[in-house]
C-alpha cells in the first residue's frame, strides 16, 4: 500500500485513536502512517453490530413470549456465548442451558441469580423482573 492511498474514512475509532498502517513512501521504503479508518471494514463492523442487535431483539421477544428466560436475553445483550458466561458464573454449560428455560429459571435461588446478575452487570431485581 502506498502512503497516499491510506484511507482516512470516518469510523468508530473517532475520539479513541488513529491506527498505525505500514505503507510505502515516495522512495519505495516502508514507513508508518496514521489512519482514521477504512470504510470497507467499518461497514463490516456495522453489519456485525446489526446482527448482534437483531439477535438481542429476537432473544427479547422469545423471553417476553415465555419461550426462554432472561439469561438467554442478557447473554446476547452482553455479546456472550455459553463458554464466556460459564467462565463468569462458574456454572457448567449444561446448567446454563437449563437455566435458559423459563420454568427452571423461575425456581433458581437468589444465590444463583446473583451470579448471573453480577456476570451481566445488572441488579438481581432487574434480572427477576424482566423489563428491557
Amino acid at each position, binding site marked *: *500500500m502506498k502512503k497516499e492511498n491510506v484511507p482516512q474514512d470516518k469510523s*468508530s*475509532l473517532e*475520539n*479513541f*485513536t*488513529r*491506527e*498505525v*498502517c*505500514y*505503507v*510505502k513512501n515516495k522512495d519505495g*521504503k*516502508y514507513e*508508518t502512517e*496514521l489512519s482514521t479508518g*477504512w470504510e*470497507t*471494514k467499518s*461497514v*463490516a*463492523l456495522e*453489519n*456485525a*453490530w446489526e*446482527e448482534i442487535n437483531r439477535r438481542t431483539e429476537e432473544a427479547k421477544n422469545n423471553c417476553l413470549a415465555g419461550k426462554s428466560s432472561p439469561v438467554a436475553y442478557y447473554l446476547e445483550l452482553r*455479546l*456472550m*456465548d455459553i*463458554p*464466556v458466561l*460459564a*467462565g*463468569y458464573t462458574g456454572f457448567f454449560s449444561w446448567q446454563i442451558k437449563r437455566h435458559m428455560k423459563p420454568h427452571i429459571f423461575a425456581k433458581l435461588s437468589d444465590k444463583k441469580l446473583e451470579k448471573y446478575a453480577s456476570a451481566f452487570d445488572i441488579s438481581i431485581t432487574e434480572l427477576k423482573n424482566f423489563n428491557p
Partner: protein
Amino acid sequence: MSEYKHIQTAHCENGVTVSLLRRQGLDFMTEPLAFGLGSGLFYIHIPFLKVNGGPAISFRSMPGSIFNRTCKTLNVPVERKKFKSELEAEKFLDKQLDEGKTVGCQVGVFHLPYFPKEYRFHFNAHNLIVYGREGDNFLVSDPVMETTTTISRAELTKVRFAKGALAPKGHIYFPADSPIVTEEMLRKGIIRGINRNVRDMLHIPATITGVRGIKHTAKKVRKWRDQVGERQGGLFLGQIVRMQEEIGTGGGGFRFIYAAFLEEAAEILGNDQLIGISEQITKAGDLWRDSALQMAGIYKGRITSQKDFDHAADIMVEIANAEKKAFQDLGKIKLK
C-alpha cells in the same frame, strides 16, 4: 528508572515487545523487527471453532508467541506469571511497579473502559503495558493508542480476569534482566525468525494452516451462498475482513508489517535479495486489500451473485499462490 516513553504500534503484542525491550536498553527494536524475530506472519483457518457461526481465522501466529520467540531468540530472560487469585495478582503487580518495573499484561477488551463500545467484544488476547501507579490508579500504555491513559485498580483487575476463550488469568510478563545483545545475535535471530516463518507458511502438514489454509478458506467461500444464503454469507465475509484489517494488523493481514521487516532485515544482513521478497509480500498485502474490497461489495449488498463469491475466492487463491512463491523464494536464499 527513566521517564516512560510511549510508543504507538499497529499491533498490541508487537508494541508491548518493542516497548519492554527498548526499556531494557535494546534501542534498535522496532515493530517490524519484533514481528519478524517472533515469526509473526501466519494464516490459520481454526477448525471446529466458530465465531458467530462463521469462520475463525487468524493472520498471525498464536497470541504470546511473538513476545516469547523474540525474547528467546535474543537471550532475554522472561518472567511470567498467571494467577488463581485476583488478590495475589494485584499484589504481585503492585510489587513490580513499586520496584520501578514496567510490565506487560494480557487483558480482555470487553470491560476495557477506554475502548470504544463498538470494539468491546469478548476478545481476551489484548496486551498493554502498565508502567506505574498513583495509589489505586494505574498508568497504562496501550500500544494501539496514540497516548497513555490511566485506569482504576478495579477496572484493571476486571480486565486481567476476563473470562472465556484465552482467559488471561491475570497473566503478567516482563523481561527479567537487561541482556547484552550483540549484532551477531541479532543477525542469527533474524535468520532463525525467517526460517521458522518459511516453515510455518509452507511446511506444516495440515490443510488449514499457511498458504494451504488460505485455499481452504477460499473453498468454503465458494459454498457459503448456497449453504447459508447471501446475507449470512456476507456476514461471514465481513468477519474475514475484520480479522484481516481491523486495528492491530497494520493493514493487509499483517503482510505489510512483514514486508517492512524483510526490508529492515535486508539492511541488517546486507542481503539485497530480501528486498525482492519484501516486494512480493507487499503485493500479497495489496491483494488482501483487493480481496477485502470484493468482499465488501458482497456484504454491502451491491454484488451478491455466485459469480461474486467465486471472484472473492479466486483472489484468495491468487494470494495463496503469491505467498507460496514468496516463501519458497525466501527459503531458497542463503542467509548468513
